[in-house]
Structure formats: structure tokens, C-alpha cells
């Protein structure tokens, strides 16, 4: 488990790095694809709830440090995504080898569409009621589509990194 944690933590740092250095420059319809939200989703698909929640918190918090939005909101969204998807992952829903080909992308697309709503709603916690005036709908649509296509390759990576922990669990 420790090896898995270390690998996932390192990859999380790399994912935040890629988000900040690359994905920020690539905008689709003016929208940034949020890799830092997709990463806890695919880690959650392994069914390792604790790992997914911690991954969501870490990736969100590190990304929060780069943004002017209220500090902690991305961490909250990451944790929520990691937790809910890991509940599905525990039931084997996101298993890349046994589940249907479209299952993982669809789960990721739903997460991509829900995450911006969750982010805007959690803005209330930080007394920021203006977030909904931004590009909420665009963000939902673009992230849903991008998550759909990116989910399987990233899930492969997450499963590969988590394999020691998954083996130990079996």
C-alpha cells in the first residue's frame, strides 16, 4: 500500500504540473480541461476509497494554490469525486477488463459535467456567490467530453500504479 501511495502521490504532483503547464494553455471553447478533477475520478475507479479521497484532496489543494478562486474548493471537489466514484469502483463498475468499454468513459463524463456544478455550489462555503456567473455550462460540456476521451488511458495508469495495493486487497 505504501508503494502505491508513493506512486500515486508522485503522479498527482505530475498531474498538477501538467495541468498548470499544458492544459492551461489549451482551451476548448475558452474552457480549461480539469485534469486535476479527472485524476481522483480514475483513482476512484480502482475502488481504493481512502487513496482516491486523499488524491482528490492533494491534487485539488495543490491546484488551489495556483488559482485566484477561494482556497480549498478544488480540494473539496476532488475529494467528493474521489469518494463517490470509488463507491462505484468498489462494486467493480469501473473495472477496465470486465466492464463494458463505454462504462469508464461514461462515469468520467458524468463526473466531468458534475464537477463544475459542485465547484460553484461549494463556493457558497467560501461566501463566494459569483462563481456561477462564470462559464459554468461551457465548463460542464467541455469537461464531460474531455473526461470521456481521457478516462480510459488515465484509468489504465491509475490501475497500473495501484496494482500492488489491489493485489494485496485480493
Amino acid at each position, binding site marked *: 500500500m505504501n508503494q502505491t501511495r508513493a506512486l500515486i502521490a508522485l503522479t498527482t*504532483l*505530475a498531474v*498538477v*504540473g*501538467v*495541468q*498548470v*503547464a*499544458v*492544459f*492551461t*494553455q489549451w*482551451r476548448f471553447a*475558452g*474552457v*480549461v480541461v*480539469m485534469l486535476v478533477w479527472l485524476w481522483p475520478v480514475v483513482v476512484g475507479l480502482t475502488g481504493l*476509497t*481512502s487513496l482516491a*479521497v*486523499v488524491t482528490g*484532496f492533494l491534487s485539488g*489543494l*495543490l*491546484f*488551489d*494554490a*495556483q*488559482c*485566484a*478562486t*477561494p*482556497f*480549498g*474548493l*478544488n*480540494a*473539496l471537489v476532488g*475529494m467528493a469525486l474521489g*469518494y463517490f466514484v470509488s463507491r462505484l469502483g468498489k462494486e467493480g463498475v469501473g473495472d477496465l477488463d470486465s466492464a463494458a468499454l463505454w462504462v469508464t468513459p461514461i462515469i468520467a463524463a458524468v463526473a466531468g459535467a458534475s464537477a*463544475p456544478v459542485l*465547484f*460553484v455550489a461549494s*463556493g457558497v*462555503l*467560501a*461566501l*463566494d456567490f*459569483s*462563481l456561477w*456567473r*462564470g*462559464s459554468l455550462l*461551457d*465548463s460542464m460540456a467541455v469537461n464531460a467530453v474531455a473526461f470521456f476521451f481521457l478516462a480510459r488511458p488515465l484509468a489504465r495508469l491509475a490501475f497500473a500504479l495501484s496494482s500492488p495495493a489491489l493485489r494485496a486487497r485480493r
Partner: protein
Amino acid sequence: MASDRSRRRLVVTGVVATLIVVTVYLAGGVVAGVKGAARAVVFPFAWATDFVARPVGHMVAGMVDYSDLVAQNHQLREELGQATLRADENAAAAAQLRLMGQALHVPWVGSLGTLVAQVTTDSPTNFAATVTIDKGSDEGVMDGMPVVADGGLVGRVIAVSWHTCTVRLLSDTGSVVEATFGDGATSVLISGEGLNNPLNVSGIPETAPLGVGSLLSTDGLQGGLFPPGLPVGRVTKLLVSPGSSTYAVSLKPTANLNDLSYVDVVLWEPST
């Protein structure tokens, strides 16, 4: 069962931790340090990714857009020549205007110092319209300083580190600018509506002398966040709702906020 309990405990701990983070953020203070530490952790990874990805991106862009690049280069050379000529003419006019302004005790933005900065990164998120520029506290930039480009106000500095700072753009949903128009008798508030949306203006009475194309500039009232006279935007849409005595106004920023490469930081501190 025990696993369920520990999972629940983890989630509750996570949520509580986040709430503490958000509360600390609202209280101010410590968050700047935490953010600095988190940025330092991410920096090597972002730098390494950028180091690898940038040349590849440039190569692809160069291959795909080569004709455009050549055309742009020709156009820029021509514009540079014209701009140099205009700059020489303007320098003399500016000096004369500064002298007149001093004699009349008129606050004029042209008399304020500016610092040229390059935009290094756009906002990394969809919910904040910000840019990062390559000048920071070591170069004299301070929190709250206005930033201009392309003939108009771009936004203001909201976070400063040694060699970089973050600028909140006019289009950010948290941005509010006090502005005026025409003879300066009416003050209005211009607020951002998100990255790709026009600015919103509230509080303009129906009787105000305003039309499509009218220019709104900062009003520079005592205690305001901006010096007077910085062009903010031009009216693109003017609507009167039935039963309302005020205009609903859409404004296009004077500066092109979606394509910022270089900006000027106005070395002016908001009065407290």
C-alpha cells in the same frame, strides 16, 4: 464494517480539513504562506512539463501556422515602424501635457510611472479570469496596482511574489470597477461576468447621455481602487427593461483581454 467506519472517518476528516482550509482562507493571513509552499512543491513538476511540452507545442504550431507567422511578422514590422514614429511625436506631447497638468493640479494617468511586464500564464481555472505576469515585488509591483494594455484598463494586481504577480482581469466575476462617462457626473459600477462574457454595468439612469459606443473610464474618486481616466470599455448594448428607470448595459473592454502578451503595471497605489 470496520473498513466502512474508517472510510467514513476519512471522508469526515477530509471534509473538516477542507472546511478549516476555507475558513482560514476567509480569515486571511496564513493562506498566503500555504499557497506559497504548495506552489513551490508544484513548480518543479510544472517547469519540467513545460520544458518538455513547450518546444513540441512550438514545433507543431510552427508547422501548422507557418504562413500565418510570416504574415504576422511582416505586419508587426510595419506596425513597429509606425509605432516608433508615433512614440516620438507623443513623447513631446506628453511632456507638454504633464507640465500643463501640474500647473492645473489635474490628476492625469500619463504622469504616473508604468512598468512593462510580459504575461506568462493565463488563468489555470475556468472560474477566475486572471493572468500571471513576470514582474513582482522586487520590481516595485504592489498589491492593488492597476494594470493597463492595448489602450485600456486590464485589471488590478491581487497577489504579488518576488518576481511574478497575479492580475485579476476586468472580466473576472469578482472584479468591480468604479467608472464614469461623458461629463463625469454619474458614477457607475462595472462588474465582470466571466472570461468570455461582456462586462456588466449597473446603476445608469435612463436620462444619462449614453449610447452604443460611449466610452467609460475609471472615475478616480477619493478612496477608489483606480486612478481617474483609465479607459475601461465601450458600450455595445443598451437595454431598458419595462418598468425600470435604469439601463442594462453591456460593455466591451477597451483592451483585448483574451489576447494579452504584454501589459503595463501602473505604479499607483490605491488610497486607503
